[in-house]
């Protein structure tokens, strides 16, 4: 029966050949465990996407109920502790893995031509990951979130000339409130996921096309 399904798909989409090419893709001999950090980062991203969607089932982005909805997830929902802790820990691990991946590429000189554009998308992906962390930090709306966001937005307010406009744009008003929370939530669950998905696709397509860089 299982083979029947595969045959059905194979007749229509030639999946056997596609899978064979995918899994038999040759990898150069010099590749070692240091080359895993990019993949681990992507795994972190997948975990974040899955647990993030699940958290959105119960999380409520308002000043009044953000904190209590997080407590509700932690105390009342079965496996809520697991899902939220996975999301919080994986967020930290993802940033560490991004840094390791970047250092590996940097010290191997893998950013050199013809791979400049892959380095460029990688740097943008790095900043997107950081922004994910910053916007997600506010959402539980505890003391740490509040003051971190206050500091963060005031730093943006210190930019010469445009600072006050950037700050007002981020806060959605004059101080941290419902508007800030819905903004950060929208950035965290709509804007950044779409952006990161598109850039990840580019990042992967480029490395697939150009192959892994030769050793120094």
């Amino acid at each position, binding site marked *: 029966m*299982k083979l029947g399904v595969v045959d059905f798909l194979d007749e229509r989409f030639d999946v056997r050949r596609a899978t064979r090419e995918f899994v038999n893709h040759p990898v150069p001999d010099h590749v070692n465990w240091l080359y895993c950090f990019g993949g681990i980062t992507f795994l972190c991203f997948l975990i974040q996407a*899955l647990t993030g969607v*699940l958290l959105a*089932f119960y999380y409520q982005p308002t000043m009044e109920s953000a904190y209590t909805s997080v407590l509700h997830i932690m105390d*009342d*929902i*079965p*496996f*809520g502790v*697991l*899902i939220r802790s996975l999301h919080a820990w994986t967020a930290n691990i993802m940033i560490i893995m991004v840094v390791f991946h970047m250092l590996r590429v940097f010290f191997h000189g893998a950013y050199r031509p013809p791979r400049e554009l892959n380095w460029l998308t990688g740097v943008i992906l790095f900043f997107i990951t950081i922004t994910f962390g910053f916007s997600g930090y506010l959402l539980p709306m505890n003391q740490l979130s509040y003051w971190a966001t206050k500091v963060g937005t005031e730093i943006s307010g210190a930019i010469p000339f445009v600072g006050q406009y950037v700050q007002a744009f981020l806060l959605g008003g004059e101080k941290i409130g419902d508007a800030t929370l819905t903004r950060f939530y929208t950035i965290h669950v709509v804007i950044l996921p779409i952006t990161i998905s598109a850039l990840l696709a580019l990042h992967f397509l480029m490395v697939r096309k150009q192959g892994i860089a030769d050793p120094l």
Partner: protein
Amino acid sequence: MIDDRTDMGQTPPEKESAGAITRRRFLTAVFAGATAVGLSGFAAPLIRYAYPVLKGQVYAKQKVTTVSQVTVEGVRFDYQETPSMLIQLEDKSFAAYSLVCTHLGCIVKWEPKNRDFHCPCHAGKFDENGINIAGPPPSPLPKYKVAVEGQDIFVEGIA
């Protein structure tokens, strides 16, 4: 068997006739089955998480005792694994509370002589209405909804 091992990779794979269980098919099925079991192990908590917590389960109705059995000592019972106590108030009505101290979670004790609940850990006190009257507890004992039907006394959920 020995032949198989010595020229591994050189003997052609066993012929797969329809329906026959070859080694390859057997291993494929075992691997696919193990993968399916493993993946469902991951999926189960996620589905349980997404499925709502229903009020009917949270506030299930539970029979505690009958009217004639309630003494000044009260009636000790567990409601959804929470140690709890049913007492008769001065005005003859019934009240039931969770015995988990609102300070640090010790189990408080009903003192019939003083008609209050006493916490052995930090000497917190709650009166017969469950109100915190002395010591460190920050809030009253959680109170249950009590229903008397004929001779039977029920509790259902936090009031």
